[in-house]
């Protein structure tokens, strides 16, 4: 399942969906709001395009790393320290594929999925800069 939602993420259900007979390894990435002197975080998405990109990244990861299952849920809206931002759950026959597939997906999301974060601090808000470089974003 690939999704963008306001509600919290049910990691347990994602893991159970990835537990298929041909899988020997499940790797979960759970990105959470870190206590970096922030109070809250506000996330915004270009939803239709972000979903398409998540599907594309999931499909490419599935193919390149022979993944048995891929589940991605990204949250938007107002989040506080400790809240889940993003969960990626993948399974594969062997651990290397599961780790590498998971990493491929998170790096793809950071570089290509139109979602933005604003850190809300006591002294105001600050948009988080895209990580890769100033030309990142969706590949044409």
């Amino acid at each position, binding site marked *: 399942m690939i999704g963008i939602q306001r509600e919290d993420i049910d990691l347990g259900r994602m893991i159970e969906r990835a537990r298929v007979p041909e899988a020997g390894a499940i790797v979960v990435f759970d990105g959470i709001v870190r206590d970096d002197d922030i109070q809250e975080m506000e996330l915004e998405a*270009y939803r239709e395009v972000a979903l398409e990109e998540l599907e594309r990244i999931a499909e490419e990861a599935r193919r390149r790393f022979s993944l048995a299952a891929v589940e991605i849920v990204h949250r938007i809206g107002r989040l506080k320290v400790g809240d889940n931002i993003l969960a990626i759950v993948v399974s594969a026959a062997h651990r290397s594929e599961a780790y590498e597939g998971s990493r491929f997906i998170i790096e793809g*999301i*950071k570089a290509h999925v139109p979602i*933005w974060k604003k850190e809300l601090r006591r002294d105001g808000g600050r*948009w988080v800069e*895209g990580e890769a470089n100033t030309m990142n974003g969706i590949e*044409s």
Partner: protein
Amino acid sequence: MKVRVRFFARFREAFGPELEVDAIKGETLLEIVRRAASSKRDGYSTLFEEDGRLKRFVIVMHNGSRVEHADAEQISVAEGDEIAVFPPVAGG
């Protein structure tokens, strides 16, 4: 001819989430973005350099596909098009 321009993140804060622009036949994506930006005071300098080019980091999409700045100067809009303008993404 109606064209939608959507803004995200700090561009949304500057211009609002979306503007409907009345486009003339033959107008390019870049011309539409320029007019949309001009709807706000100081809007122009948010997206454009003094020499009139889009700032390097500004990302433009046309109906959900990214377009290079050079192409945005060439592609003409059509009825019902959606243009999106946003800063570098920071998901995850």
